[in-house]
């Protein structure tokens, strides 16, 4: 399987794994960061082995959207009034449960690669085909 693994899968998986290490290092002090660290390792493993594409894709998508929502609410969310921090709080927790801010930074590249016909999508498709 490794011989057919595209370069973008390798790069992104390594980025996620390094992100997991960094987040996990912070998690040794503030243990809440162990959650996104574990998630990053899981996602890196899924990408490396091309397993559970839907889970991988939607986790990344939710991570990106929650990260975006967090930034937008903090920057322009005053009209939400007292609910502003509730929304940003939910967005932050969602973002952390799905891999944290490091995944958000890499998410756009990953999701672009997951579009139909793109290397990451093909990588997951091939793997699925083999296992079928």
């Amino acid at each position: 399987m490794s011989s057919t693994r595209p370069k973008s899968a390798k790069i992104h998986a390594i980025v996620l794994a390094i992100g997991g290490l960094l987040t996990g290092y912070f998690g040794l002090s503030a243990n809440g960061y162990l959650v996104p660290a574990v998630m990053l390792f899981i996602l890196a493993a899924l990408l490396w082995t091309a397993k559970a594409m839907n889970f991988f894709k939607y986790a990344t998508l939710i991570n990106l959207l929650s990260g975006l929502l967090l930034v937008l609410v903090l920057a322009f969310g005053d009209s939400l009034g007292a609910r502003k921090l509730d929304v940003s709080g939910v967005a932050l927790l969602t973002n952390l449960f799905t891999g944290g801010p490091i995944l958000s930074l890499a998410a756009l590249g990953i999701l672009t690669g997951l579009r139909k016909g793109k290397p990451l999508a093909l990588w997951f498709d091939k793997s699925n085909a083999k296992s079928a």
Partner: protein
Amino acid sequence: MKNISIKILAFMALAISSNVSAASFTGTITKPNGSPAYGAMVTVFSANGETRETVYTQENGSYAIRTPYSGRLKVRARLASFKDATTNQDTSVSGRTNLDLTLSTFASLESANFAMSASAFNARLPWKDVARDRPAFVSQCNYCHQMGNNYTRLPFSHKEWVAEIDKMEGILAMASVRDKANIADVLTRAFNGEPIQAVQNYGASPELARAKVREWLVGDGYTFIHDADIAKDQLLYGTDEGHDILWVLNRDTGKIDQYPLPDIELPRGGLFSGMKLPIGQFTGKHGPHSLAQTSDGRIWITNALSSTLMSFDPISKQFKTYQVGHDSLYPHTIRVDKNDIVWFTIVASNQIARFDPKTEEMKVMYLPSNGFIRWVSDRIFPTLMRIGSWFPNQAVHLNLSTHKYFGQNILAFPYGIDVNPNDGSIWYAKLYASRIGRIDPVTMKIKEWKTPMLGPRRPRFDANGIFWIPAFDDGGLMRFDPQSERFETFKIPAIGEGEYETPYALNVNRTTVQVWMAANNSDRVLRFDPTSKTFFSYPSPTQVTVLRDFTFTEDGQVCSSSSNMPAAAIEDGRPSFICIEPEGGATDRAALGG
């Protein structure tokens, strides 16, 4: 005319009656060897113990004090390194008593240790590397209370100290995991129940012998009067951050009134309800912190826990609440400019607020973040606090706070604030980022300077537009000239070998141009004379004196609130209002012919 005559007669009757009930004492305080005790404190307690007055002895050991008290009064003589001399005097018959007291030596080193200030003990903490390890202790352990006094000098195990620091972390202490382990290790080894050898000297002076101190006990063991301020009515107002109460002291009558702040739809602890509320201390929702008065008489209060601004009308006794901002955390020090605009810092979200009482318009602006990590914290910290509030009293949000790794450096902490009398510009000090800044009140343009000493806390301007800044972390005083943009620094003299000082706040008497500042590590108040560049030390009559802000009365007294956290650690077990009358002792001496 008739009215005036009646008033004069009434005043005379009052004066005569107060003379009749007033007790005065004169005498000499001596050391055990018979030599005069210079700089000793002679304190007369009221019959119910709720108030007390103190004078300091002259070089020949003599003292003279007039009090408004009557009945059986406790009189105490106190001087560092000696055991108190205490007696009870019945003053119901005679108004004036001659009373000589002799100090004694301590029976043991242990009992001598009980009379020493915290500075003697925290100076001897066995840091492996003082320069590397001690700053976090000063910054995070000395910030709210003394460490090393009789209340905190406990022979805990390492595990118990870690639990204790965890508790502090739950109320906004920002020690990193590494700092926490280090501090716990040092405290375990240092506070082992063994007595220490130390000599402390508060530095007697002719200026000290001219002074008089008054103290009024307030509230209970968990009352936390963060700040006190003299209003135009010359009453002393104090914000009780622990109980959501505004205390008001009439210094002439000794009467203390209390005005509970109105309720708000927030849980106990306000926006900080997710934190571990300290030992029952914060029982309120608002957390009134700092106060200042506008020319219309209204008193403005920053409510740290509810992130609101509140006004109090001293005439109608009515409060009114104003929201600050949805992501503003911990409104802090408040000042009013010459146009009656209210300005205050917001420490935990790195902001400054400007409020116009006429239009009721509130503007909140971010200050420069001073680095990427602080920028992230400025934006995320309020959200973390909200997440914490979903799990009340558990401090779970700390598991996501990067202070666990970076320590207090994740926040800039804009703390003290003042108005430049020359140009009306607004100046602030950032405690953690060690910077001062200027805001143009018209353009709102900001300029910042790094301070040469660390921990600029609550600065003030003098009448000439010189900015005076206490350097908490470096135990110093800084002078900044906005014209030349140059700093001058002064190290605060300690009272014992190896000791350091923790100056929390200062204020400059704009008439006498004297800088009064807190010295919270060693139970004293300092006066700095800018002309001679000399510090004068005024030892506090009460052990465990932690003062926050200073305010001046029209007749030249400097007042503050004793607000160690918790108040139960203070010698009396309760906080107090405290006023120093720089010439009060001399006046009493002259009146009594001393």
